[in-house]
């Protein structure tokens, strides 16, 4: 009995952590290239509604996932064009992207409100995925495994691959990287597109896996938590994984307390927890010993215009 509860808690935790992990991984790469995209929430919503719409009309959840990534990346290109080509302010543009995504997703989603889709299928055989114990390892949505693979990939990419090193160099010193011949703007475009695709994927998790039903503002500010997570993780992929699961635990607390009918604390206060936890964690990370404090890429948020 207690094992069953424990397993269900772990599974809720992983489920709650996965979409913010996916989105935060993308944002981490974007920020490592020196760009601050505050439009995460908007791109996630656009991904969520696209995944739902495509899955609903075609019946194929995998097609929905691909469409969500494409839509997230497309939305991020608006941001990229404005901030990278036209050197618009990144904070303002990111905010505009979020407001835009909220509007666009509820506009597209109005025909889907309350509809349901059949979500993604397990990748492991039912014998493993439905086993009361085995499901804690094999019973997740494919996106959960993908998020773990992507964590490892991003960690490898940033520290071991040539392209990753170039990307980091550009984030630390765009001028220097430019002067030795790297195309700052092109790399940043690619990073932003990757971030958009990952945010779209994270959004898709909400509409296809967590609640296979469309509702307005489905992501409820999780995109902002993902942004905070990148700061919390001091721009390190593995720490991001830990942070995402920590937030997953906080959100699980809310869900399980509700399910268990715990009435001592009003549900609204439990719903505040992830946001309060974000503030506390951001504060703690700022008081932490120096070294971590200056982990932000040096060129983060600063516009760049190449010499002719």
């Amino acid at each position: 009995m207690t094992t069953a509860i424990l397993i269900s808690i772990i599974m809720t935790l992983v489920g709650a952590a996965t979409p913010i992990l996916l989105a935060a991984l993308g944002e981490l790469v974007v920020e490592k290239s020196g760009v601050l995209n505050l439009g995460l929430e908007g791109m996630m919503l656009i991904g969520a509604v696209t995944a739902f719409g495509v899955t609903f009309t075609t019946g194929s959840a995998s097609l929905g996932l691909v469409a969500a990534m494409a839509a997230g990346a497309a939305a991020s290109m608006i941001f990229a064009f404005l901030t990278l080509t036209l050197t618009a302010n990144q904070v303002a543009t990111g905010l505009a992207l979020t407001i835009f995504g909220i509007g666009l997703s509820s506009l597209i989603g109005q025909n889907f409100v309350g509809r349901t889709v059949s979500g993604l299928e397990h990748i492991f055989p039912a014998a493993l995925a439905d086993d009361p114990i085995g499901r804690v390892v094999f019973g997740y949505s494919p996106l959960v495994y993908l998020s773990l693979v992507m964590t490892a990939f991003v960690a490898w990419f940033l520290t071991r691959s040539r392209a990753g090193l170039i990307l980091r160099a550009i984030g630390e010193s765009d001028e220097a990287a430019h002067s030795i011949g790297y195309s700052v703007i092109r790399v940043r475009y690619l990073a932003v597109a990757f971030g958009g695709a990952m945010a779209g994927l994270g959004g898709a998790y909400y509409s296809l896996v967590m609640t296979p039903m469309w509702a307005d503002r489905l992501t409820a500010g999780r995109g902002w938590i993902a942004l905070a997570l990148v700061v919390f993780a001091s721009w390190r992929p593995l720490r991001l994984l830990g942070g995402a699961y920590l937030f997953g635990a906080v959100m699980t607390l809310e869900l399980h307390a509700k399910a268990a009918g715990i009435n001592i604390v009003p549900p609204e206060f439990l719903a505040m927890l992830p946001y309060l936890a974000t503030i506390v964690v951001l504060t703690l990370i700022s008081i932490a010993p120096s070294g971590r404090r200056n982990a932000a890429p040096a060129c983060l948020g600063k516009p760049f215009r190449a010499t002719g």
Partner: protein
Amino acid sequence: MRLRLEPRREASRAMLYGTPVLAVALTVLAGILIFSLMGYDGLAAIYQIFVAPIADPYRWQDLFVKAAPLITIALGLAIGFRANVWNIGAEGQYIVGALAGTGVALATWDMQGYWILPAMVAAGILGGLLWAAIPAFLKTRFNVNEILTSLMLTYVAVQLLYYLMRGPWRDPEGYGFPQTRLFSEWQTLPTVVQGTLVHLGVPVAFFLAIAVWIVLSRTVTGFQVRVVGLAPQAARYGGFSARGTVWLTLLTSGAFAGLAGIFEAAGPFQQMTPQFSVNYGFTAIIVAFLGRLHPLGIVLAGMVLAVSYVGGENAQTALGLPYAATGMFQAMMLFFLLAVDILVRYRLRVVVPADLSRPVEARHPPARQAETGAHVSSTPIDKQRESLSA
């Protein structure tokens, strides 16, 4: 033939004022296109959104009522944005301000007196101010990013609103509906024009715009805010405290948002309901930018956004255009503004490739940053001209 962007010697004043108009015009064009693609009559939709509210004098009062909170909040935000302090949580400060004022209203519901409304307004201002003090404290004491904290506190404020409406503040005679009792006549804002909805918050918004304009342009405090935003190092050198500026701008924007909140609760709403949060705090960000962070520009931008709100309702009833389209439309306005913003600092020039004899105008001094503070500075734009293939 190519289009080329060349840095301007100085930020163009004509473009500074012209680009918001251009942005609205582009949004209108894009709107016609998008609504047509969605299967609506694009021209009719734009007429409903942008022309009908102005053409119908009966809707003018709605415009002013909608514009008042947007202008009030945006004025506060603009002060911060000028100093590169990014208060994104005005919506939360707006809600908490309204809640604080409502608290006073509920405590005095069976009392009478002219002091009640001022007390509510004072509580509203204080509520918004205190909610903004949290990110200010965390920023100045621990250097925690104010964008994230102020935004997180908005979600907390929304939950606080839900809790109070569902629990302690629910109207005991309200048949279980999660909303407070109606405010009494001592607790509601008077209208300033007989027979209309135009309440006291409208002239206050206009008055605040003038006050902020004077403070920003004529006082040392205003100068401090601008210098800290444009040239942080010079500001430090000149003895202006960066910390003090963070406190000043966050508390001011919080107070303004709180004021807008209690005005909205004691004016159009006359009670608190869970539907109180309508994202004025976020739309005000668009207003601030569209108004070029200038108090008088903000008044105009607030009216434009109010038109789009009222027009959005029009289009909903007349054409069945979903209300969500309004939000998207407003965001597009900001997108276009940010896009055409480059014309302030650069000029577009048509270049014929064969013409190689033209002198290279590369010896320009650095183009000065637009005075708006909307640009993270440190762009090395003293570089030569840039080309953009078109």
